[in-house]
């Protein structure tokens, strides 16, 4: 926090204070909160805010990873190191396990974004989580622009955009009946650039794939996908080694890299500030399905 005589508060300080307030509200008013932690940059920032909200105590809730099984090794490694360093309890909700037990069925195209929703909901039910912190931001996507800080979900985990509670001042209504839950989005008011400025300011380490590196990729529809166990070359395709970085980290079979020379946080900030394509538009095959893809997934219980 900056401390000056004129009581100035920078936008990052104001955003941080708001997010910390939201996290403390949840801890004070819910029985069993959990923080969704994927090892992606937004959830990493969220975890840092949780550390700050409860210092000098430990983060007083577990973290959960909905594991599609399609992971970047660097990210899984980062997840495990962070969880160990903070002494947190990690719950892994495994999509592979859910496929093996028949809870969900693998889709013909092999993508797992859509089928992770029932896996998430089953874990919520199993552990009786009543508040789930998610790292979604309103600037990401237009269905998210209408999301509340406290997003009410019925007993099926569904989002009904017409039936959300008005949010006035900083008075968040988290009341719910047994079986219902609240998704909480402490980063609602942050933008991609805010996240990066904060990572720089707080010197938060990230998985290496967020910074420019050489990688074997294949170009599909203007996007660069890493060639790995999840993405194999199709007939007529050829791979190439390019200097890339990831702007978002999701399912490894769905997330594309962008060409980049930005190998430091400062360079990434320059790049993000100058970029002309949205984060999800540049990197997420899953959001390109239809104009209302995110709206539909949220209604089903996705974040």
């Amino acid at each position, binding site marked *: 926090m900056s401390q000056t005589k004129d009581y100035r508060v920078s936008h990052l300080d104001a955003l941080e204070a708001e997010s910390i*307030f939201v996290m403390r509200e949840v801890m004070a008013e819910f029985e069993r909160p959990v923080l969704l932690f994927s090892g992606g940059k937004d959830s990493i920032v969220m975890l840092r805010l949780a550390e700050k909200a409860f210092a000098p105590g430990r983060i007083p809730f577990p973290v959960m990873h909905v594991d599609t099984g399609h992971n970047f090794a660097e990210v899984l490694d980062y997840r495990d190191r962070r969880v160990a360093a903070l002494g947190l309890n990690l719950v892994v909700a495994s999509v592979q396990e859910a496929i093996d037990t028949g809870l969900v069925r693998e889709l013909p195209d092999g993508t797992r974004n859509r089928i992770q929703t029932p896996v998430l909901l089953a874990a919520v039910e199993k552990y009786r989580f009543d508040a789930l912190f998610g790292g979604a931001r309103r600037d990401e996507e237009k269905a998210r622009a209408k999301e509340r800080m406290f997003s009410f979900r019925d007993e099926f985990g569904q989002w009904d955009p*017409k039936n959300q509670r008005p949010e006035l001042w900083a008075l968040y209504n988290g009341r719910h009946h047994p079986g219902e839950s609240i998704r909480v989005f402490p980063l609602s008011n942050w933008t991609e650039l805010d996240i990066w400025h904060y990572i720089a300011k707080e010197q938060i380490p990230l998985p290496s794939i967020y910074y420019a590196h050489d990688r074997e990729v294949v170009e599909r529809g203007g996007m660069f996908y890493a060639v790995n166990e999840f993405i194999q070359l199709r007939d007529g395709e050829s791979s190439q080694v390019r200097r890339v970085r990831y702007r978002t980290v999701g399912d490894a079979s769905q997330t594309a890299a962008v060409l980049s020379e930005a190998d430091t946080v400062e360079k990434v900030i320059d790049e993000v500030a100058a970029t002309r394509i949205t984060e999800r538009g540049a990197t997420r095959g899953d959001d390109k399905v239809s104009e209302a893809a995110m709206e539909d997934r949220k209604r089903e219980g996705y974040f």
Partner: protein
Amino acid sequence: MSQAVLEPGAAFERNMDLLRFATAGSVDDGKSTLIGRLLYDTKTIFEDQLEAVEAASASRGDEYTNLALLTDGLRAEREQGITIDVAYRYFATPRRKFIIADTPGHIQYTRNMVTGASTADLALILVDARKGLVEQSRRHAFLTSLLRVPHLVLCVNKMDLVDWDQKVFEQIADEFTAFAAKLDVPDLTIIPISALNGDNIASRSEASPWYEGPSLLHHLEHVHIASDRNLVDVRFPVQYVIRPQSTTVTDYRGYAGQVASGVLKPGDEVLVLPSGLTSTIAGIDTATGPVDQAFPPMSVTIRLNDEIDISRGDMICRPHNAPAVAQDVEAMVCWMDESAPLRVGAKYTIKHTTRTARTVVRGLQYRLDVNTLHRDDAADGLALNEIGRVRLRTTVPLLADEYRRNRTTGGFILIDESTNRTVAAGMIIEAS
């Protein structure tokens, strides 16, 4: 489309400040176009978004790129051509980060305007230059003053369609100024614009040589908001008690919360309510170390020199400057629930600062017509989007200030105890 005038670039200061504003307008006033224009002129819109909008405009047969489509979020809205809920938008200039609460203007959505205005530093109201002030413009101005938004901007839009006639602008400006004088509007700015063409948005337009005020963006960037905070009355609602149970940190007891108003410093004598006990501040902690003062909107953890029993919902203030400890509250409420009206005698949960209690509606003095400001003393309830003055009795005391003095310790919500829905927003007039 005019040339975008602002380079984003990494030159953005990390120390820019934050301005939250709410926009309101009738359906056809061009509000979505204005927001689209602000996003476009500040280079917040990305190529893929612009391409999507250009394609959508073309398929609708629009003659120009319809910037309004940028902000229409949900499928139901696109199909009906309306906005059904508050949407939040973000943009930044080198001086400031902006959060827009974009609220629909339909008559049935007073609820959304109140929601958006509750956290706003500034409200932006649009009128169509051809139509002048309409009922909704007055209602929006009234709600802005009811919610005590410190700054108000009236944009007279579609000036191109009245040939930038200065007389048209001045007539609307005079009429609005006269109306605003009856309200509590501390700061009013009126700007002639064309959102469609970008005139007087990012820079002053040659189309209006007679207009000597700032462009909209210049005003948004420079309007002085730092003094809007109440730095006088110390109010620290305790949110959560931090007592680590660990071997490395022992005997730590800190009261976590966000400063609602005032400035707190180590050594200050404090009064804790409702217990009435006093102590002094031993230290003010953040995760990155102690600080020498705390002021709004900082989230901090306060330690006191005396071991007194303090829990969530208590308030730390100063011995000679304290809120009322009150179970009887007079307030204006805006009813937000469509399923059942507010009734005298009904019981609700009340959430005020970090304190939650039960309350009963003891009386309804009047219902206010938000268009005429007429008071109807005969009203026996408040339906969705209706506003009235009520008397409440709470089960436990609230630690409350008048809303006009303190938006954080003067505002509350009511929650229906069976549905758990947020059914009302309240602004305290008097607490005793």
